[in-house]
């Protein structure tokens, strides 16, 4: 959360995150380049080695990035991996650009037409699948990755509006699909061994499987078995069903509501964090504030507003306690409206 923008708000966890990330990148490159030189050192050229090492690195990183989201939804202990995922994404873009730029230089530059024109016009079998110009798919994926990396800062999140930003960042799945074809159509037909197909297949199944599992989990959460309604209020659960400083999620009339129990009080706010839609019901009441599990944005429980100087606000909902049952009114109050908490 921020009132003003700085390039990166560094903290210890982010530094550890980045050091581990760079360590893993170095490890990958060292092994790839080492093994290539030992096995094929007499044949492979420097450019080819760079193109292949960075292409393989980027696609490996992309798989990891795509697995973090659903893993964190399936098990909250993975949330630290989500915390600084954007650095992972931006770094992956740089690795992919090294691959892309070297490919364009190697395969298209110093010729009779502009390298970028050559990228699109040298192989023109656009109407076939097997012969499709696979480099073009890599190019468009790289453009998407560029747009995502360029707008990854919270400044853009605010200025583009979270909705536009989120949609833009969903394009990563389009990029991923195009990259699967980029690799399949490009390399697989050259190398005889089916290893890359198998690796890519396993990677793809893992990414899809995790997303399906997380989606299924999410669906099951927060739906009431039966909906008992009276005077606009819906019966949810008893206060004992909610742990201290934690929340219960309910989906009602298209609203996702997080009902928090804290300091012997109950308050209900909208479930979605204004930062990147983190699920506040999986957050915790810490130091007097509801704290988002993703990047730690904070909201006051009674009015859904971030403490000053921050300005984020979410909708609030009315609660009632009748015969030790919590009832919620699913009609939201405007974002940031203060509502007296229910006392236990």
């Amino acid at each position: 959360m921020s009132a003003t923008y700085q390039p990166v708000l560094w903290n210890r966890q982010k530094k550890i995150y980045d050091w581990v990330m760079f360590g893993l990148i170095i490890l990958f490159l060292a092994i790839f380049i080492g093994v290539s030189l030992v096995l094929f050192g007499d044949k492979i050229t420097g450019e080819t080695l760079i193109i292949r090492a960075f292409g393989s690195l980027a696609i490996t990183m992309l798989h990891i990035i795509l697995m973090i989201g659903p893993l964190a939804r399936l098990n909250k202990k993975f949330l630290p991996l989500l915390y600084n995922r954007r650095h992972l994404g931006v770094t992956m873009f740089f690795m992919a650009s090294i691959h892309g730029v070297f490919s364009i230089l190697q395969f298209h530059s110093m010729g009779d037409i502009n390298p970028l024109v050559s990228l699109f016009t040298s192989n023109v079998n656009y109407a076939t699948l097997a012969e499709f110009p696979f480099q073009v798919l890599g190019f468009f994926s790289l453009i998407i990755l560029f747009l995502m990396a360029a707008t990854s800062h919270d400044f853009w999140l605010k200025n583009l509006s979270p909705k536009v930003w989120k949609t833009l960042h969903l394009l990563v799945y389009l990029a991923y699909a195009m990259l699967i074809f980029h690799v399949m159509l490009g390399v697989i037909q050259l190398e005889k061994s089916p290893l890359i197909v198998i690796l890519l297949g396993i990677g793809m199944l893992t990414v899809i499987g995790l997303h399906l599992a997380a989606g299924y989990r999410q669906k099951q959460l927060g739906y009431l078995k039966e909906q008992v309604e009276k005077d606009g209020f819906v019966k949810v659960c008893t206060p004992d069903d909610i742990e201290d400083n934690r929340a219960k999620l309910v989906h009602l009339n298209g609203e996702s509501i997080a009902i928090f129990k804290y300091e012997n009080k109950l308050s209900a706010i909208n479930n979605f964090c204004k930062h990147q839609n983190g699920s506040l019901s999986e957050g915790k009441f810490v130091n007097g504030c509801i704290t988002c599990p993703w990047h730690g944005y904070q909201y006051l429980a009674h009015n859904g507003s971030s403490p000053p100087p921050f300005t984020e606000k979410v909708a609030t909902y009315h609660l009632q306690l009748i015969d030790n049952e919590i009832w919620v009114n699913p009609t939201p109050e405007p974002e940031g409206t203060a509502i007296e908490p229910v006392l236990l």
Partner: protein
Amino acid sequence: MKSNDEFYIGYFPKAPKSIAKWIMTSVIILVISIAILSLLQARNQENLQANNFEFGKITELTGILQTTPVPNLVIHNGQDINGNDLFQSVLLIGLGKFGSDSLVSFFKNKIDLPLNQTEVTLRGTLIYSDGKTLLELTEEENALVKSVPLDSSITISSKKIGRIELNGEMIDSKCYFGVMNPGYGKPHRSCAIRCVSGGIPPVFWSTTEDKATQYYIVLGKNGEAINQQVLPYIADPICIKGEVYQYLDWHIIQTDIENEITAKGCSGF
């Protein structure tokens, strides 16, 4: 510790113990997976050729400059067991993805005598593999070091061998014999198209039954360059028919582009 108390906040200096432990375990698994993935992907590169492109090293070669069948320099290459002189043809290539036709005509104009009566020395970067040699005229117009008149004129000609029908692939000679690795097949296709389009002689390669590779410089049916016309066939499996000639250590195939190149394998294969 109750599960309720574990909560990760990134900007707090320390993660809760149990979460930190979980992440440590994940990172260890990640390190092992990354190592294995990197190893597997690196090992998988099978199709590499033993090519040579002496990038950064300039070599001088002396011989007879020829503009046909494609620009080349004929150099003296020892003698056979009967004491006959042996000659080798070094294909001349431009810088980047260009042929050397315009450079060679420029040199031809600079040399007063007919090419057959002159010995020239050219500077450039050597490209070689599988017994074939090419010279990139890296310094372009400055590649001609000197020309010396010969006592007598030398004739170098092609011998007709006969008609042939072959399955194989057409590539650009510069990348295939040295600059890239591999310089054939699909990933390299757009580059090969660029090179052939820029005037680098297309070469057709085909493997015989005993796994030996044969190379043929591809020309039109009257011996003319057909670089632009062959572009749709580059780096694809094709069947080619035509008249084969021997030019020193190279084979030439003269083909009728309209009728004698087909995108599928030859019938009977």
